């Protein structure tokens, strides 16, 4: 039910949207798109729309740690308004350093206020990895380490969204030799529901989907064993890829811009990590459905998987590996030769001559 007499922060989403000229049909259309995106039965769309209309704006507190801001950019700065930008009407982004006007002490005050006002109810969104080496001194906000902030604000959060591969698994800062001791949120926080939304950056629709599901149904969607939403990370790029028929037929591009590449053949031999990467980008794509790496001619680099930066060259296929160099092979051969020679010499010394046949 809409309630026009309630104060703005008490009114439900249905009333708020109505005030802005969005009727129930917009909400239902949004719910239709979201149920499709979340791989839910379409019959749930009216239920979702109803629940959204009755729900209050969900408080989200966003903390940015050791990150490049790419995740925030991809999620919040869509080039064109899309239907799922409605999601930002459903959440109240109560704290986000890159976007808000206040800074310094005023920002800290905003954060404290937001946490106090929504204690136990807010979603804590994290982007960026958490450095733990040397007391976490490698990433500080207002002089305070990320680890310390995470531990405090995770405590009174309803659930944590680890946005981007850095927050989920450590990402690029964690790449060898990991000088800052970067780790993902799940390596620090336990006993709190965590959703990993990996990707470098993650697909924007995935965050919308998770938020909508949470606001509509009051719980997090089904997660896989890496805490990723099954609806978006249940299949590999390989299984959704439009170039899959070429893989099955054994038609591979052998080098960039060769005849096979121009025909749009499979990029497996050019290092595509599609078969071992779980993400939704092969179907949802980037930039409002424009394209994704494989469609643009470059193999998947596996950016939504842990340690993707340390899997060897992006251009070494899954059939290959970071094998030993020729120098090490030479050393191994020399060691073998020496050992074999020693064994043979020892045998030779035990039999000074080979006796002739007496016959």
């Amino acid at each position: 039910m809409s309630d026009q007499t309630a104060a703005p922060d008490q009114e439900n989403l249905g009333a708020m949207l109505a005030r802005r000229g969005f009727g129930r049909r917009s909400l239902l259309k949004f719910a239709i798109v979201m149920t499709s995106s979340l791989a839910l039965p379409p019959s749930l769309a009216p239920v979702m729309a109803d629940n959204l209309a009755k729900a209050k704006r969900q408080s989200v507190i966003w903390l940015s740690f050791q990150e490049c801001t790419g995740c925030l950019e991809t999620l919040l700065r869509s080039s064109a308004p899309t239907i799922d930008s409605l999601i930002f009407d459903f959440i109240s982004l109560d704290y986000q350093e890159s976007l808000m006007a206040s800074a310094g002490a005023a920002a800290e005050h905003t954060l404290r206020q937001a946490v106090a006002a929504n204690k136990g109810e807010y979603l804590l969104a994290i982007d960026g990895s958490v450095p733990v080496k040397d007391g976490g001194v490698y990433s500080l906000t207002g002089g305070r380490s990320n680890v310390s902030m995470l531990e405090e604000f995770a405590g009174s959060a309803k659930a944590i969204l680890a946005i981007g591969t850095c927050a989920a698994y450590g990402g690029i800062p964690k790449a060898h030799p990991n000088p800052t001791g970067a780790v993902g949120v799940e390596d620090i926080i336990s006993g709190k529901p965590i959703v990993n939304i990996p990707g470098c950056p993650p697909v924007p629709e995935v965050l919308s989907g998770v938020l909508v599901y949470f606001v509509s149904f009051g719980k997090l969607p089904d997660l896989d064993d890496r805490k990723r939403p099954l609806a978006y990370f249940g299949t590999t790029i390989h299984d959704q890829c439009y170039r899959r028929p070429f893989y099955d037929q054994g038609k591979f591009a052998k080098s960039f811009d060769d005849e096979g590449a121009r025909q749009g053949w499979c990029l497996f031999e050019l290092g595509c990590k599609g078969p071992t990467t779980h993400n939704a980008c092969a179907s949802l794509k980037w930039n409002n459905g424009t394209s994704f790496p494989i469609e643009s001619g470059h193999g998947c680099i596996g950016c939504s998987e842990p340690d993707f930066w340390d899997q060897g060259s992006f251009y070494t296929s899954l059939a290959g590996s970071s094998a030993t160099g020729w120098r090490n092979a030479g050393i191994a051969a020399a060691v073998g030769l020496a050992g074999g020679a020693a064994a043979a010499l020892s045998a030779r010394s035990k039999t000074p001559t080979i006796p002739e046949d007496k016959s």
Partner: protein
Amino acid sequence: MTLLAFARGPAMQAATLIMIAGMFWRLAGILLLRRKTAHAAARTPFLLRLAGGAKTIVTRTVPRKNFWPRVASGVSLGWVLHIGLFVILFAGAPHILVIHQITGLSWPNLPKGVIVIASALTLAALVALLARRLTHPVLRLLSNTDDYLSWLLVFLPISTGILLSGETVAGYGTLLALHIFSVEALMIWLPFGKLMHVALVFAGRGMMGFNFARKGAAT
């Protein structure tokens, strides 16, 4: 580190180094052993002795006519096994890719379906050979850990490979890791058991043919 990253990284490096060191160890250890001094003069020039060695390597592939009835089953199954392995390793696209990444060489592959059939026939031959080994009274007596372990370490890569190509039973990443691990196990064991025949068969037959030719005997 994920299982697959470990299989493709440190494990592959270790297995490669162990295999190289082991093969050099065994080859050096055999070739540097004391040999009987040949007091008689050579009957043939050196090049003909080499040719004799080369010829023996090839001709010993086919047993002599009089032995054929007794050895037919084992030898035919062995041919199926080895030809199948050759097709899988040198005509299968992913393996050509591995060779290309190490050496820069590559050549056209055979269709996936052909490789799958070759794999199936190879596996069938392996099972038949195991059955023969277990039921043949003499073979059963002679067989030891080396025989059974070598059989298993050849069986596993082919069976994990066929599952991987079918992308069935488990996720691609898991299947690939298992396949690579099974190949690494084979690589580590190879120099130290009867699988070393991959090199020694040429050395053994070659030496014999060389020596026969030296004596002027038929090869």
